[in-house]
């Protein structure tokens, strides 16, 4: 809680996309859906509070379908969409976006690839032209592929200076070893180096097809008008995405693993503790949201109370389910000075065990419900937030009224429900990963069991 004068990036949880634990008290404004003949699915919502329009394009393939040895490919393909099309160079695209004060972003996560755009409503046609052009007609010139690969390698190098990000990446690798979720979406240096223009073209051809695409538009426009404009730009797009095998179920870790990543000059340890969590479509999602809010979601959670408020061991601690198409990770994130590393680890584990064993108090249930009720409305005052919600419903196949009934489902969660779903928090099959100065903390960690050392940067 400090407003430093500079935007210093701090990625505590790493680069995992989450469309997870949001909440209710709230009715989604009406929206219209349409499926084009080529399979593209459109979701359109009018939102007139501000003269803005937001777009979200989701391609149903992400880093989980990166070929072996080409980890990072989905992310590189997404990045390259904005780097030149049949009719516009990378410079022209950037200049067109910036000239009107818009934004156009592209990225990939495990399950999907994303294009996002936010423009003033008066620039809506330009925004649509740029989106359609980058999505349908990227040129992937050799020059831009080489440049994007080099940029990614630079970012991977720079990420080594971010202890929080590194800890999360290593945690995911250890947890999902051998599974398509087991590599960072940005890839590894060795795999990114090997990506060629052919790899990029093949990924695009296999996955960027209208039947694998969802387009969301929210903002200050008339729905009919927007649908017509989208259809005009997308209906000529042909082709089908290649058929993919369903993602395998990730295997849970055997027992309780303890991993140490050595960062010799560090004066602070980054701690990650958790395991396999849930799918986004888990039937217990509401009960788990309430449960996790109590354990480590809000600012008055048990973890915050014990670790931060009562003992001042850390500036921040939280727990979270990152739910995906397959079981995503669950983890507790925190950090503390070298000397209190073991104390903090043990305390976090104790707080979680006690909560899972004994369950919540009625007071905690009431507070969590109210908090979740209010926070959804607060978090959804803008068109970009609405676009995220619509995209989530579409992508994960949630019921169209999912968020209209969300509040009711939260309100019905009882202490017994929380206790019942506590088995979905990983405990006996877990990963503890600490990134810090090994010479200072290794002996302490060994009192918990055998410690495996993981390299700082690669697998």
């Amino acid at each position, binding site marked *: *809680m*400090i*407003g*430093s*004068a*500079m935007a*210093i990036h*701090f990625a505590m949880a790493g680069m995992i996309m989450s469309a997870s634990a949001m909440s209710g*008290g709230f009715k989604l404004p009406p929206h219209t859906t349409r499926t084009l003949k080529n399979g593209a699915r459109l979701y359109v919502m009018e939102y007139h*509070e*501000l*003269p803005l329009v937001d777009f979200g394009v989701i391609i149903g393939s992400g880093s989980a379908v990166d070929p072996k040895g080409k980890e990072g490919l989905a992310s590189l393909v997404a990045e390259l969409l904005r780097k030149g099309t049949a009719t516009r160079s*990378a410079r022209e695209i*950037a*200049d067109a*976006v*910036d*000239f*009107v*004060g*818009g*934004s156009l972003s592209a990225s990939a996560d495990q399950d999907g690839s994303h294009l996002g755009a*936010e423009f*003033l409503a*008066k620039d809506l046609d330009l925004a649509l032209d740029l989106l359609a052009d980058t999505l349908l007609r990227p040129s992937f010139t050799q020059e831009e592929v080489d440049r994007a690969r080099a*940029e990614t390698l*630079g*970012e991977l*190098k*720079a990420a*080594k*200076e971010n202890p929080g990000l590194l800890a999360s990446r290593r945690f995911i690798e250890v947890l999902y070893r051998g599974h398509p979720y087991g590599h960072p979406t940005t890839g590894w240096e060795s795999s990114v180096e090997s990506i060629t223009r052919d790899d990029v073209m093949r990924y695009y051809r296999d996955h960027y097809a209208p039947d694998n695409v969802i387009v969301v538009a929210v903002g200050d426009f008339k729905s009919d008008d927007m649908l017509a404009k989208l259809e005009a730009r997308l209906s000529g797009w042909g082709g089908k995405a290649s058929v993919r095998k369903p993602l395998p179920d990730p295997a849970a870790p055997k027992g309780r693993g303890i991993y140490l990543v050595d*960062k*010799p*000059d560090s*004066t*602070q340890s980054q701690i990650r503790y958790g395991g396999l969590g849930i799918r986004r479509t888990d039937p217990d999602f509401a009960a788990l949201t309430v449960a996790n809010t109590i354990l480590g979601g*809000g*600012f*008055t959670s048990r973890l915050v109370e014990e670790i931060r408020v*009562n*003992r*001042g*061991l*850390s*500036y921040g601690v939280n727990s979270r389910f990152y739910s995906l198409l397959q079981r995503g990770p669950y983890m507790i994130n925190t950090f*503390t*000075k070298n000397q209190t590393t073991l104390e903090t680890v043990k305390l976090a584990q104790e707080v979680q065990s006690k909560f899972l064993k004994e369950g919540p108090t009625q007071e905690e249930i009431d*507070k969590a419900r*109210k*908090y*979740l*009720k*209010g*926070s959804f*409305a*607060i978090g959804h*005052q*803008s068109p*970009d937030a609405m676009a995220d919600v619509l995209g989530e419903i579409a992508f994960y196949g949630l019921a169209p009224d999912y968020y209209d009934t969300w509040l009711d489902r939260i309100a019905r969660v009882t202490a017994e429900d929380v206790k019942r779903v506590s088995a979905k928090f990983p405990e006996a099959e877990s990963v503890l990963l600490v990134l810090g100065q090994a010479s200072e903390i290794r002996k302490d960690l060994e009192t918990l069991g055998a410690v495996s050392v993981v390299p700082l940067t690669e697998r």
Partner: protein
Amino acid sequence: MPFALLLGAALMTQVPAKPAGGDRTDINRTVIKLDVQRHTLRNGLSLLILEDHSAPTFCYLTYFKVGSRNERPGITGISHLFEHMMFNGSSKFGPKVFDRLIESGGGYSNGSTWYDATNYYEEVSSESLETVLDLESDRMRSLLITPENLEQERSIVKEERRLRTDNSTEGKIFELLMANAFIASPYRWPVVGWEPDLNNISLEDCKDYFRTYYAPNNAVVVIVGDVDAAKTRSLMDKYFGDLPSQSPPCGVIDPEPEQKGEKRVIHRMQAELPAIMVGYKTVAWDHADSPVLEVIRSILTDGESSRLYRTLIYEKQIATEAYAFFRPSIHAGLFIIYVQAKEEVEAAALEAALGDVVRAMAAGEVTDRELQKARNQIRAEAIKELKDNSGKADRIALYESMAGDYKKMFTVLDQVDAVTRDDVVRVAKKYFDIDRRTIVTLIPEPAGEAQKDETQEVEP
């Protein structure tokens, strides 16, 4: 409620037709109007209310006119440490109650501290209005300042310092830049404080600090959202009316002498990539060159068509990150540029390439389209900042406190529109002067060899 009234109360937008022809055709003329009601309590507390009934929530923001500039050596970091203390209970509500009540009200709270000010805000559901006023007035009236609270927050803040400064290359060299660029300005010490000072802050220091700076006459309260303005105003009188005003705090001046020569600092620490952070001495927020510097910042850094990205990352491919930072401040601050090298690129090469970018601005190489792009980007950004209740409250409080009138947030945009190419050239020449510059160079040391994590000043 009739629709028109609702719109008028919340946020009026109008997009006039584009004028025909000329290079200003594309000017983004989207205009936003905020209908804010002002009221000053008898004890001097300023209150601004903006009704917006689009969601059943509101934001309550308190802006205290105190930041690290008001500190002195020996207790640096007290403003930020105090921000933490403010959540630990008051006479009517014990420790831990504040956050519990806010979360039970379906909301969250937070605060931030910087050189010039400290703010606190919470967003909660509309029915919690009185709860919030009760909590907020009680902590302004009778905050619990106890040895236990102080020790707890001291250790949390030290963790925060380790996270953001000591274990962050960018945080570390930013701290060094400010500390070396300024020799007398209160901006020379870090907002988070020097660690020995954090250890030195006493309970008495905290009590004095609270009495002096957290008085109602040193605060601006902004309420935005689903509230009734008239009713809220009388509730504010009810809850805050009895708080006594205090004599105004001592003024702080800016004694910084003119810099007449470049300063260079080398910092060695465990890192992967060299980086440089450059700061040019500029001016206070109300100086006529301030909007021009804002335009220059935008041309250098906004978007992938910006000069820093295009030159250093896209064309020359020598940097992994490059940005410019400039924020209007009460005293003269810095125009900052940060560049992190790509692998196998030396800091000297970054410096040379950055020098070319900066000289091009002063040499008048900025195009009309670039200038118009900057105006459009700044205006669009201003609109996006007003997306939600907390964004609106934040902007209103900032401009009301610093510029004396929240409407200045729009005047600034007009000033930006009026910036010409000649202004850009003149201002770039004046401020991007090597004699006004301080440059910190980060030299990476391999793991395990950076035991002497110290800073040395060298001759240029």
